[in-house]
């Protein structure tokens, strides 16, 4: 059978129209297959620029070896000099005062700039995802203002310590720092998610313990974010963020539980401070609430992802009697989760989460280092306070 005969048998006057129809059909089928692929490719292309930029920024995070050298520094001037070839160089002139407060303020500015830079460069659809991470700084700032107002510091002094980043407008944060009483501060929070802090004022009046208000702020922050994550369909980016947020909540809760068990607090006195949500089963949290020692909390965690990191810190806890090594191990594990997300989701929110969690760790370590050196701690003592990426 010739091609012309084939075309005639199919009702076409010649082969050319048959070929044209076949080609058109192939194009339609091809488009049906290719369009979803191309949409995914376009999505990936959106992240190519920002994520590559973030990877370069990640490469400038102070490496562990450099940090080890800095720990051996004998003065703050040496620390500042060691920071010269790093991302901190634009802030060095602020650190020249050679006081840890000056360094901390420069670090706060660097934190704000890092967040702002990442928030500016990520694609539009990630900006709302990043907002969840930015809210953490609102809470950090409100806590600073709470402490400042409580300690009757002047608005200028309070403002100097704030980290100028977050979802709340800088003018709003500045206005909050003007408050002359905690009641005024809480009333100024009207119109923000943190206005619910008013519910805890009565308890604060009874106890005069700021932890009541600070813990409530954490509850509002994490529970709102968790509610948001569990009430809508999640794309890959939100799923990654949910995973990170779950670990964040677990770490906050576990740190509270470890500290409470160390201090011998009862289940009833700490239950209301725990954040609802996270990756740990509620039944497990309840069972941990009932145990009475740090060792029992560790044992209760067996089978969870937190067991190994915590177990690694137990010998240090036993030798020092402080839960700080366990807290550092948990924080380090959180950074590890952030890093893992950046590896498993290179075209999406991953690199941003990974970079910001590594950056926070770096800033925290430089801050610890500066405070430690100023306080005259030995390198070994500082080393014990330094946070490492968990395993």
């Amino acid at each position, binding site marked *: 059978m010739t*091609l012309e005969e084939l075309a005639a048998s199919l009702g076409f006057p010649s082969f050319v129209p048959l070929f044209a129809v076949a080609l058109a059909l192939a194009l339609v089928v091809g488009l049906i297959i290719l369009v979803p*692929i191309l949409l995914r490719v376009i999505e990936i*292309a959106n992240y190519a620029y920002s994520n*590559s930029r973030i990877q*370069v*920024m990640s*490469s400038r995070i102070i490496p562990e070896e450099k940090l080890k050298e800095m720990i051996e520094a004998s003065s703050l001037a040496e620390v500042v000099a060691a920071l010269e070839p790093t991302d901190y160089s634009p802030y060095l002139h602020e650190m020249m005062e050679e006081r840890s407060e000056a360094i901390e303020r420069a670090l706060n500015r660097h934190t704000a700039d890092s967040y702002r830079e990442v928030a500016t460069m990520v694609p539009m659809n990630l900006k709302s995802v990043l907002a969840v991470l930015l809210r953490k700084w609102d809470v950090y700032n409100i806590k600073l203002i709470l402490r400042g107002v409580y300690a009757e510091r002047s608005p200028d002094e309070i403002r100097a310590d704030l980290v100028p980043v977050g979802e709340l407008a800088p003018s709003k944060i500045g206005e909050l720092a003007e408050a002359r009483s905690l009641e005024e501060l809480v009333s100024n929070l009207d119109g923000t998610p943190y206005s619910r802090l008013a519910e805890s004022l009565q308890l604060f009046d009874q106890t005069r313990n700021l932890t009541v208000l600070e813990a409530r702020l954490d509850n509002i922050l994490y529970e709102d974010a968790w509610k948001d994550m569990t009430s809508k369909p999640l794309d890959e980016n939100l799923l990654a963020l949910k995973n990170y947020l779950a670990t964040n909540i677990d770490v906050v809760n576990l740190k509270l539980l470890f500290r409470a068990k160390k201090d011998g607090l009862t289940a009833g006195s700490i239950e209301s401070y725990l954040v609802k949500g996270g990756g740990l089963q509620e039944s497990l949290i309840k069972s941990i609430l009932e145990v009475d020692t740090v060792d029992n909390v560790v044992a209760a965690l067996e089978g969870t992802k937190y067991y190994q990191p915590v177990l690694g810190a137990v010998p240090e806890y036993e030798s020092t009697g402080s839960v700080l090594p366990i807290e550092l191990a948990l924080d380090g594990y959180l950074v590890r989760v952030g890093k893992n997300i950046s590896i498993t989701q290179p075209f999406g929110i991953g690199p941003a989460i990974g970079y910001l969690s590594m950056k926070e760790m770096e800033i925290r370590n430089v801050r610890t280092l500066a405070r430690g050196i100023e306080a005259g701690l030995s390198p070994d003592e500082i080393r014990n306070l330094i946070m490492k990426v968990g395993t």
Partner: protein
Amino acid sequence: MDISTGVALAAVGAGISMGAAAIGSGIGVGIAGAAGAGAIAEDPGKFGTALVFQALPQTQGIYGFLGAVLIMIGTGILGGFAAFESAATALAGVMDTTPENAALIMGLAAVGGGLSVGLAGLSAIGQGITAAGSIGAVSKEPGAFGKCMVLTVMSETFAVFGLLITILILVGLNLLGA
């Protein structure tokens, strides 16, 4: 002897060869280029690394161009139709059909060849994505250059296979070297 339909089909094949491969390379190079721009924005010293990885998805476009040129030479679009006519006559003898029908078959074969190298050229999209990831990875860890290069080059295999099949089709139907 009317070979016009066969030649027209061959022209379609050449067009698909270059066009589809160019889409693949264009998207691949674009994605890798965006990643390269991101890296350079933070560190202009990364230009060399970015350029190397961005160049890799371009090869599919070159294969598509090569496939198209081979089809056009084989079917006489470049260089005259005498060779195509004689090849069609020879094929007609082998297949026991008319030279016109043989020319049509050869034109269709050229479309097949064009589709092979053209569609295989879409592998440049995947290569561009790997190249973009590699630019980020190498920017962070320069020691990973070799390994990232190996990963990125992997997609090339399919483009080479596509070109190979195109050449085999053209040779098999006596369109090359007739």
